[in-house]
């Protein structure tokens, strides 16, 4: 029987759930879209502040279905931060692109509900439920520009491949259930010798495949560029940060707790990590579309996360979480700046001003945006004073601690390759003259809310770059 005080532990989830449902009703009754927007902000802020209440508690509630500990709290906070920044940056973007519907916000909130369920779920079925809730909202949000062919292509590709991969995930869960007779994650973690049976390992592998797809790990990365390019830019930012955090939040605790029993997977994960980094970095070199370029860079980031997953130790836990913290700020910041520079194109129904050539001479026309974008790109490349550097540092440190020295050397070499395309974008912005005569100054009229979102990301990137230890003092992972 469920105790009433169990609900104490899922207050953020309850707030998001109620908020998502109420936004639907508000949208149905009110013509004013600002009401929905501000209600969404209030919901996410309330959930974010209540997420801190149980920061020191480790417990399992709801008949072993919900796990509350420092890991799940950290992931919740990360997800909610990413969503808060995306919501702030969304308003002016969806007004500009003519997709200002209230459902945008409620779909976002429903997807957050799924993500929180994933990271606090202590049962594979609950995790699966959360994953589906998140994915279905993402499919719809990716195709939210319904008159644009690219957006439709993005939604359809994501939906078909995602539905197919869900099959792998479910089959994996079924095989694990077949061996252990349970879907409870704590029971699975303490199952001992049974984990080494081939059937369980196959099931575990299929389970991981389902999540590797969501992360965009080689060989399941082919959907990433197409989907990220076609989706609305703010949604791309959200999918590539919050969605990934949720997927990592599921597999990371499982892999770390099973570590001694699944060492057979270490070479597989290592090779997948290297190939993912390689594919992401090398193909990005030849991209001419900024959104596609950042999509490949996010594949490379998934590769760095895989290096941590392959190390399977406590350092990897810290490293990956810090990398995700940095990633939220730098990746979201970069996508918000792209969404600011994107031009309204309701007449042609194509994305405009997203080519590398459009970024020529940006520093002369709008130095502030150029400086911000440069900081995000430096951080993504892993250059020291910014948060991205520490993320990579901790992950490669974890790999060295796990005796995967060859993996960290190859990873660092590939990371050097990836610096090239970040620098290329910076060179385009600072050292080339604009060849675009029809550039209108309207583009740079940024709304205060978007400004606020960009400031949040820039503050995060700089702050966690200069004081990385502050994060671990707050979240004692």
């Amino acid at each position, binding site marked *: *029987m469920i105790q009433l005080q169990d609900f104490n532990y899922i207050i953020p989830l309850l707030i998001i759930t109620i908020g998502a*449902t109420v936004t*639907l*009703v508000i*949208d*149905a*009754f009110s013509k004013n879209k600002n009401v929905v927007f501000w209600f969404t902000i209030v919901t996410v802020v309330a959930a974010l502040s209540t997420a801190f209440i149980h920061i020191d508690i480790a417990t399992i509630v709801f008949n072993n279905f919900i796990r509350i500990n420092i890991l799940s709290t950290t992931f919740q906070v990360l997800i909610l931060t990413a969503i808060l920044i995306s919501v702030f940056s969304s308003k002016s973007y969806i007004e500009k692109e003519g997709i200002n519907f209230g459902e945008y916000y409620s779909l976002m909130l429903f997807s957050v509900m799924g993500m929180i369920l994933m990271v606090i779920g202590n049962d594979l079925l609950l995790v699966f439920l959360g994953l589906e809730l998140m994915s279905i909202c993402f499919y719809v949000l990716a195709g939210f520009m319904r008159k644009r062919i690219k957006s439709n292509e993005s939604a359809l590709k994501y939906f078909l491949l995602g539905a197919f991969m869900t099959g792998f995930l479910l089959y994996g869960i079924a095989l694990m259930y077949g061996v252990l007779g349970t879907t409870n994650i704590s029971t699975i973690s303490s199952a001992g010798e049974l984990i080494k049976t081939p059937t369980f390992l196959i099931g575990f592998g299929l389970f991981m495949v389902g999540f590797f797809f969501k992360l965009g790990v080689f060989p399941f990365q082919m959907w990433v560029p197409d989907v990220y390019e076609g989706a609305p830019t703010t949604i791309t930012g959200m999918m590539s940060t919050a969605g990934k955090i949720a997927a990592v939040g599921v597999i990371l605790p499982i892999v770390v707790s099973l570590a001694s029993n699944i060492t057979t997977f270490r070479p597989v994960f290592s090779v997948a990590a290297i190939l993912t980094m390689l594919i992401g970095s090398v193909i990005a070199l030849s991209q001419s579309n900024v959104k596609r370029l950042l999509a490949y860079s996010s594949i490379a980031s998934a590769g760095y996360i895989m290096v941590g997953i392959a190390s399977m130790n406590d350092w990897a836990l810290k490293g990956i979480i810090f990398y995700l913290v940095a990633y939220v700020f730098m990746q979201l910041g970069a996508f918000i700046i792209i969404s600011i520079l994107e031009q309204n194109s309701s007449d042609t129904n194509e994305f405009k001003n997203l080519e590398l050539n459009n970024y020529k001479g940006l520093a002369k026309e709008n130095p502030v945006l150029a400086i911000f974008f440069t900081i995000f790109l430096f951080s993504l490349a892993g250059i020291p004073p910014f948060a991205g550097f520490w993320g990579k540092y901790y992950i490669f440190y974890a790999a060295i601690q796990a005796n995967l020295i060859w993996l960290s050397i190859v990873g660092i070499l590939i990371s050097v390759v990836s610096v090239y395309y970040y620098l290329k974008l910076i060179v385009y912005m600072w050292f080339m003259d604009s060849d675009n005569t029809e550039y209108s100054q309207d583009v740079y009229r940024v709304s205060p809310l978007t400004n606020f979102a960009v400031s949040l990301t820039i503050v995060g990137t700089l702050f966690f770059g200069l004081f990385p230890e502050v994060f671990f003092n707050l979240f004692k992972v």
Partner: protein
Amino acid sequence: MLESYIPIFIIITISLLFAIVNISFSTIFGPQRPNKEKLSTYESGVEPIGSARDRFSIKYYMVAVSFIVFDIEVVFLYPWAVSFITLSKPEMIYSFIVGSVFLFILLIGLIYEYKKGVLKWD
């Protein structure tokens, strides 16, 4: 172990043979006198109109989706209602609250649908 499947194999073989023999015999020996009326599409006895590959109004899908939602609601409510009487009093209150929350969520869906004009049919 496998012997117990023999009856199933026999019944599959017999039914396959029955179908194949009947259809092939009637095709080979039956009289073939086609005319325009016979070859036209069978549409429940009515004269066929237009092509079958047509675009349907989105309303049909909306009605279908609403039907599925409320159909499933009933499926969940039956066992809830049947087991309600067997519960003790505190359990009854608890299960009443849970059932009400479930119905309330679906009610919000209906309100949303109504206000968005999905149920308007003209």
